[in-house]
């Protein structure tokens, strides 16, 4: 009897009679992963028409990208905005998640749902609303304005990730620290924070990526010297298919993947102590 005839699940169905299911799942997985990955080899193609597999390899689209002052300036803006967003949204979101989780006041649930609204409010509405408000307070096309808006979009993610970490954390440890004489802030910094650090680090990376990948709000409120990479890409996409964008996409995929891997690795090594 081959493994194909063994029961595959608790319904006692055999692997053989549901091979079609594995095939379907594999195809869906390919649909999820492949389209993004296929851009990577295509970006090294020498031809204007991005063939796959490329008949001739070249770095010309990368040269285009790295030699263009406009693209470089936009990349710098995006990285800056992402880093600042992580620096603003992570502490704000972590403090809010901790405060609401521990205080258990009646209003906590309400504040929590207000902090999560940026997820469900259509981003186009946020975009034009922030644009309208920023015109009046002269924050359009500034890095400050961009970082504030992106931080608002990132706060719900930080709050969600940190809250779920707090749920699985044993708050009695903080009680022990306090009964031994540590103040509340000290107990939080020395006992609680080190144990939820993976969540805090993950949420900082998510905050960076929220800003780095964001298009719609940036389209309205960033411009001039402070226009973001995604804004410029979006404008370029509406005109024609410029292969330089494949090179930029590859760089963006690399940055995102590296950050995620880094946060996981750091969190793991810290958690083992």
């Amino acid at each position, binding site marked *: 009897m081959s493994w194909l005839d063994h029961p595959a699940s608790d319904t006692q169905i055999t692997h053989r009679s549901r091979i079609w299911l594995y095939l379907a799942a594999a195809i869906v997985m390919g649909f999820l992963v492949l389209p*993004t990955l296929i851009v990577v080899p295509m970006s090294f193609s020498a031809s204007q028409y991005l063939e796959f597999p490329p008949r001739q390899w070249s770095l010309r689209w990368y040269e285009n990208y790295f030699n263009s002052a406009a693209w470089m300036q936009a990349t710098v803006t995006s990285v800056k905005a992402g880093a600042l967003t992580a620096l603003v949204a992570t502490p704000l979101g972590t403090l809010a998640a901790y405060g*609401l989780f521990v205080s*258990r006041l009646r209003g906590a649930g309400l504040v929590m749902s207000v902090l999560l609204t940026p997820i469900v409010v259509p981003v186009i509405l946020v975009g034009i609303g922030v644009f309208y408000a920023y015109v009046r307070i002269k924050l359009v096309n500034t890095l400050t304005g961009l970082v504030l808006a992106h931080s608002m979009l990132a706060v719900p993610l930080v709050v969600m990730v940190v809250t779920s970490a707090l749920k699985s954390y044993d708050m009695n440890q903080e009680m022990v620290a306090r009964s031994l004489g540590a103040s509340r802030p000290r107990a939080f910094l020395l006992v609680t924070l080190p144990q939820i650090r993976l969540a805090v680090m993950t949420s900082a990376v998510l905050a960076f990526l929220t800003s780095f990948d964001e298009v719609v709000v940036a389209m309205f409120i960033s411009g001039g010297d402070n226009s973001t990479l995604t804004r410029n890409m979006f404008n370029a996409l509406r005109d024609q298919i410029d292969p330089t964008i494949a090179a930029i996409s590859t760089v963006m995929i690399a940055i995102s993947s590296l950050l995620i891997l880094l946060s996981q690795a750091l969190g793991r090594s810290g958690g083992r102590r």
Partner: protein
Amino acid sequence: MTPETGPNATALRRDALAERVALFGLSLPALLLVTVTMIIPVVWLFWLSFLADDGTFSLEHYRRLIEQASYGRIFRATFEISAIATFICVLLGYPLAYVMSQLPPRIASLCMIGVLMPFWTSILVRTYAWLVLLQRQGLINSWGIRLGLWDEPLALVHNVNGTLIGMVHIMLPFLILPLYGSMRAIDRDYLKAAANLGASPTRAFWQVFFPLSLPGLLAGSLIVFILCLGFYVTPAVLGGGKVIMVANRIANDIEIFFNWGAASALGVVLLALTAIILFVAGRLVRLDRLFGGHAP
């Protein structure tokens, strides 16, 4: 922690309350940020939607939404595209989540990386990838013709097809995550019991497993549908200007016509629809499942 009786009880209770209020205060900076950069601007738009061009109160923007047939068409298209995209997500996502929920945890978490990868690649990058793959001389068309599947290049992009493909690709993880979470939580003993009582695998699946997975499926479909309603980037790029969803019309009203009143009214209706769907659905499914399914 706090003793309920004794001479110090009142003072201790007051201290405990004071501390809880102070802790509550930790959420104020975040609350302030969200209020200033989201709530006030959106309320401001709400206000604008009731002002005529001369600054007086009027319902003309809403009247136009009802009277002009083009707005009705845009809303119908938005609902249709969102519904079809949600349906395709269910068709594709259910089998994958089902198989993943039965894999050993280590292999399942490897698959989870595949599902989550789209989360950390920009929507724009993925939309661009589809643009390249689906165009007339693109990979899909050239391979399809070489393999003899079709003779003429198919119009896969700059239309509804491309928009749907791109939207499904972006929304699929949002369906799979809550669905996978709820499937993992199903007690497998029910299935053993069903098999023991003589149910065929098909019957055990449809009568036992499928109904138990419905809450996760509903929560996932709901979030997919709601997020689809507000899509902007994908229809703009993969629809090639031919697919106008509500969000695209809002952007056009601002960028081309500078008509803040009309854009605001559209935005208010879109937000109200989202809120109504969330509210009604919130009575059917537990909403915390929408976002709670993230960490496996």
